């Protein structure tokens, strides 16, 4: 049953509470109640972290390659990929400063749109 399965605010609220709030806070509460049982280096946690990283990477790629809305209308995929790559290289070059990576990417994208690349 998807988020839009019923045209009902109550269903959407329940979807957000279960799929969002419960799905995250059970881990925080377990952290308080059970302490640091999952060792940081345990294989189980490495596996979970790897899948989580893969999931977020998938959404990053989707937003860069197949975005919806204004970004999809205003820009070509090649510009977005180039802007993201330049920003990421800048991020690595300055010793992993997120603000620099994001700033360079956005400037690259804005410049590309302005000069209609």
């Amino acid at each position, binding site marked *: 049953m998807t988020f839009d399965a019923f045209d009902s605010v109550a269903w959407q609220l329940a979807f957000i509470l*279960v799929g969002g709030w419960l799905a995250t806070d059970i881990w925080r509460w377990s952290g308080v109640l059970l302490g640091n049982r999952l060792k940081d280096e345990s294989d189980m946690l490495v596996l979970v*972290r790897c899948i989580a*990283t893969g*999931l*977020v990477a998938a*959404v990053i790629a989707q937003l860069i390659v197949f975005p*919806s809305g*204004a970004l999809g209308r*205003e820009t070509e995929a090649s510009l977005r990929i180039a802007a993201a790559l330049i920003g990421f290289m800048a991020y690595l070059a300055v010793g992993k400063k*997120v603000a620099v990576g994001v700033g360079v990417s956005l400037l690259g994208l804005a410049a590309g749109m302005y000069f209609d690349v």
Partner: protein
Amino acid sequence: MTNNPDTSDAPPGNLHWFFAGQRLLMTIPAIVLMTAFIGFAGFAREVGLPAWQTVLITLIVWALPSKFLLVAAIQSGFGLVATFLTVTLSAARLMPMVGSLVPELRGPKTRTITLLFLSHFVAITAWVVSMERLRDVPREHRTVFFAGFAISLTIACALIVALVYVLAPSLPDIVLATLFFLTPTYFLCSLWGSARERAGHIAMASGLVLAPMIYLILPGYNILLTGIIAGGLAFTYHLVHKRWAS
């Protein structure tokens, strides 16, 4: 010059430490995070979530990767079970984070219920900054200091989300497109930086390459499939590497 020795010599109380925590909103990691929420608001708006749901998600999910996946799951038409699985997989890392924060946070009279409440405001940025600063705070004031920082940060981000939502219709497409681009670029950098081991970098790189390819074949399932395949590849590397090292 009416300096009252009684009050000036008293050690700073809870109120002082609450505001000391709140002042951490003006640190670089907090400011970068607040900027990322501009992007999140743009993303949720594009997906078609109303303002109240976007603000609600900001307040009750709070960890940005989990929110990001929740909204992407809604957009891709995931069922509730698949959504829960996707989000919860991204949130499991909160358990060891909270587990390591609690011993720093707990004072002589701290109740468990207080810690359960405060744990909600733990996410990567709040955790990194708190782990760094809590040691400079007297133990009996640490929960208040953390509340001053983490709760204020959550509320500030929720306000930013609401504000972007209100302003968005009056912004030109070029600005909207740039705001929307903030989210993927923020994660591109922060996800790389937060990876603890090489396997994390492999999961990220293979996820970035696989997702668009799987999208062309199975659009509705590409996020979940990519997560499992990229995560599995990276984990296999981790196991093989460990075997080799030992």
